[in-house]
């Protein structure tokens, strides 16, 4: 009771990550008449995760539109709306459903500003619930962010907590460039304090955040695994290892300066994501950080990621997803402590 009153005094409320995005969308719809929402089941139903709950009721079916069941159609239609000055926010129902829209995203939305030499802006936000850990069937647990980070012209971001979810969705919608907004679906029900305040002091959309300072190892994560990384940092503390946890937030562009500053301090780098390892965000960070501060590294960067296999059946996902123990194992590796690979392959 007391805590709630304090929050209200600060203009903030405790809410789930899902509700935080909902309130961010609501603010965006209120603030700019050109903002409109499109997606499958986002109207009456409020989205399969209820992220758009109540928005069609309050803003009407011209602002919050249920779309036919065609992802390319949703994104291609958004292009035309953007041509006319709208700021479409499109929901892809699940990560694995985005591929039918791939051409419209990477060949049209990503390239139109370049193609038209700056004449046509594509302020389109593409919301994608992503990642595993919810025991789902095929195509409902994927992490396709690297495909989009690889494509020039797209911004790619992911939130890890309710406050960022709220702030970043509004920043993404306000951004004049297309933004892939990856929502950590297994954290939708995580609660946190959310303030609607956005000001000059608000961290910009492309900046990473050091969520826990440390001195021995830099642990870089984003989206659903930030919480896991924090758990790992706490556990490592018991072993006397100080981990600095970085929440990337932006995957394209990556805030290398923040990661670099951390690695110059710790000399050790572990990167984790649910997406497969090969050609992933972790590979890019390992390469870029090695290029930027090779002389500061005391160990080769380590990656803890999903395996290079299709996302497995639900009963196997605990073996696919990075978890606390796998993170600590990688920390041991960069600390030259005994780990699972000690003596491996010899």
């Amino acid at each position, binding site marked *: 009771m007391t805590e709630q009153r304090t929050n209200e005094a600060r203009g903030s409320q405790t809410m789930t990550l899902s509700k935080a995005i909902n309130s961010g969308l609501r603010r965006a719809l209120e603030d700019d008449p050109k903002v409109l929402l499109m997606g499958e089941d986002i109207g009456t139903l409020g989205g399969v995760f209820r992220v758009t709950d109540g928005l069609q009721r309050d803003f009407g079916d011209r602002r919050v539109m249920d779309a036919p069941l065609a992802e390319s159609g949703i994104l291609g239609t958004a292009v035309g709306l953007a*041509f006319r000055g709208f700021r479409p926010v499109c929901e892809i129902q699940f990560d694995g459903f985005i591929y039918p829209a791939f051409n419209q995203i990477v060949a049209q939305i990503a390239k139109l500003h370049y193609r038209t030499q700056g004449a046509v802006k594509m302020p389109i936000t593409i919301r994608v619930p992503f990642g595993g850990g919810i025991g789902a069937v095929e195509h409902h647990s994927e992490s396709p962010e690297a495909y989009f980070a690889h494509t020039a012209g797209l911004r790619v971001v992911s939130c890890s907590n309710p406050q960022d979810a709220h702030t970043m969705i509004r920043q993404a919608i306000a951004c004049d460039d297309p933004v892939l907004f990856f929502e950590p679906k297994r954290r939708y029900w995580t609660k946190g304090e959310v303030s609607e305040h956005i000001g000059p002091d608000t961290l910009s959309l492309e900046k990473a955040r050091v969520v826990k300072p440390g001195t021995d190892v830099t642990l870089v994560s984003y989206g659903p695994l930030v919480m896991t990384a924090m758990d790992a940092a706490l556990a490592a503390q018991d072993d006397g290892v100080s981990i600095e946890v970085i929440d990337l937030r932006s995957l394209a562009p990556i805030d290398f300066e923040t990661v670099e500053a951390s690695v110059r301090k710790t000399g050790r780098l572990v990167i984790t994501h649910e997406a497969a390892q090969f050609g992933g965000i972790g590979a890019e960070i390992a390469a870029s950080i090695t290029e930027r501060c090779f002389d500061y590294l005391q160990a080769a960067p380590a990656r803890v990621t999903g395996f290079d296999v299709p996302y497995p059946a639900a009963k196997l996902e605990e073996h696919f997803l990075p978890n606390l123990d796998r993170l600590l194992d990688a920390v041991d590796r960069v600390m030259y402590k005994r780990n699972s690979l000690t003596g491996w392959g010899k």
Partner: protein
Amino acid sequence: MLRTTASEEHLETELLGLDFVQLLTPDGTRVMNPRFDPVVADIGAEELKALYEDMVIVRRIDTEATALQRQGQLGLWPPLLGQEAAQIGSARTLRSDDFVFTSYRENGVAYCRGASLTELMPVWRGTASSGWNPYDIGMATPAVIIGAQTLHATGYALGCAIDGVDSVAVAYFGDGATSQGDVNEAMVFAASFNAPVIFFCQNNQWAISEPVGLQAQRPIAERAPGFGIPSMRVDGNDVLAVMAATRVALERARSGGGPTFIEAVTYRMGPHTTSDDPSRYVDPDVQAGWAAKDPIARVEALLDSLGVFTDEFRASIQAKSDAAAKELRAGCLGLPDPEPLTVFDNVFATRNSWVERQKSQYAAYLATFGGAE
């Protein structure tokens, strides 16, 4: 706005019908048509002369651009030879506040929308990725991925409806594109949202080397009614029929009637592009049959029968088209090569640290070649 139940209004679909609309035969005979004649009642001799002029000029532009490619001045050119009536007849009916989304062969449409002749060149010369600012002429930079632009047109049209204006979006695409998912999705979205969009399909019988029979087993126009979109099948080499059909579609769109599909049946008389060799797949007899249905010759015959195809008119058209060719050539050759560092421009609308870093590093690299003795 969203139609929540399937429409029972089959009447209009049937009214527009699927009869082949032709108002001007290949030999220049004006055919009476009670449904479409009133729509083009205002097109007299002077208006016909203007349409004729447009068609002759875009054909001349096409010839000159093909020559420029053969001379190594353009990397590629997609000729529209044979499709002049389909492009001029449709594009000349539009208002400046309408917006068109085309494929890459619609240089005649671009001409009508007001692209300068020089602006037709940069994409094909490789000096820029767009020849014009889309907002200046109400025409998007042509889309190369087949069919993608039909969704863009649908979205733009939806935006017009939301804004409460009576502007219309037009999607130009070919017979090959009708096999694409995007075109079919566009028709679903347009029908469901009742978007004021015209699907203008130039069935030129070929998708590079693949005949239309590989894309469709029935007339393409027959597909649209299944989506709840009325359609018309017109002689695409008949500028009057194309104009009439487009006007009917525009009127429907402007008055809240929603999307219309037009199949303009025409023929690609040239190669797919200057890189293509149609002799490997085109039957010369079929080609000759279509040559006899030329879109320009029939207007010439009509003008002649009206007594207005005078020597003076002929000479003036000749002079104008020669001037256009000259202007096109000069414009093409005058295009400056882009500055190297502009490769980094406009990737994003907002600042981007990665692009800026790469630009800065590449500038430093280039500088190592600068100021050499």
